[in-house]
């Protein structure tokens, strides 16, 4: 079996700060995702990537950048943290044609 590791688990930032969240997977999956989880709003897709160096915008990409430097890693940058950014960010991965998506445990972001 594989695992998805998200770092850090908890991230505290200041309003206006640029913050980076990291995700590593050892499934050798092609596709990776970043979702934001907010109570009452579900899991909203920020960015996804179907292969190394590919980036596809989700519905919530404004205010974020992403980078897929290699197959196993996918990072997400909050370009300017806002107080309403407090949420859990979930990284996930799957293989093309494989219908099961696997998730990491999340990074909880708090902006002060």
């Amino acid at each position, binding site marked *: 079996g594989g695992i998805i590791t998200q770092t850090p688990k908890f991230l505290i930032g200041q309003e206006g700060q640029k913050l980076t969240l990291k995700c590593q997977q050892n499934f050798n999956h092609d596709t990776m995702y970043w979702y934001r989880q907010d109570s009452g709003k579900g*899991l909203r897709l920020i960015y996804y990537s*179907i292969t190394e160096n590919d980036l596809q915008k989700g519905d919530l990409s404004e205010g974020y950048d992403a980078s897929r430097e290699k197959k196993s890693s996918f990072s997400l940058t909050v370009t300017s943290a806002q107080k309403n950014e407090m949420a859990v960010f979930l990284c996930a991965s799957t293989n093309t044609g494989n219908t099961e998506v696997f998730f990491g445990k999340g990074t909880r972001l708090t902006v002060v």
Partner: protein
Amino acid sequence: GDSVTQTEGLVTLTEGLPVMLNCTYQTIYSNPFLFWYVHYLNESPRLLLKSSTDNKRTEHQGFHATLHKSSSSFHLQKSSAQLSDSALYYCALSDRYGSSGNKLIFGIGTLLSVKP
């Protein structure tokens, strides 16, 4: 665009009673794939059920769901709720043939709380 609508908010049940969490969807995909994911506290969300076959019941861990393309629905059911079923449940949608690169769209989630 594509969207998923679920039973909103919190569903509270007494142990032993049946569970029904609603999920409907809108999509341009001619072959949608529907999923239920479960998210227990302090764990990662994980797949509970999936289906792309119209009118065929799929089951796992006591839960079942049937994709009905005519009504665009994929409701989650269980005959008897257990305390351990308390969790956040997400319905999700993707394209069966991956034309959008495995883009997976989730509903807002339904928090199920089972009481003794």
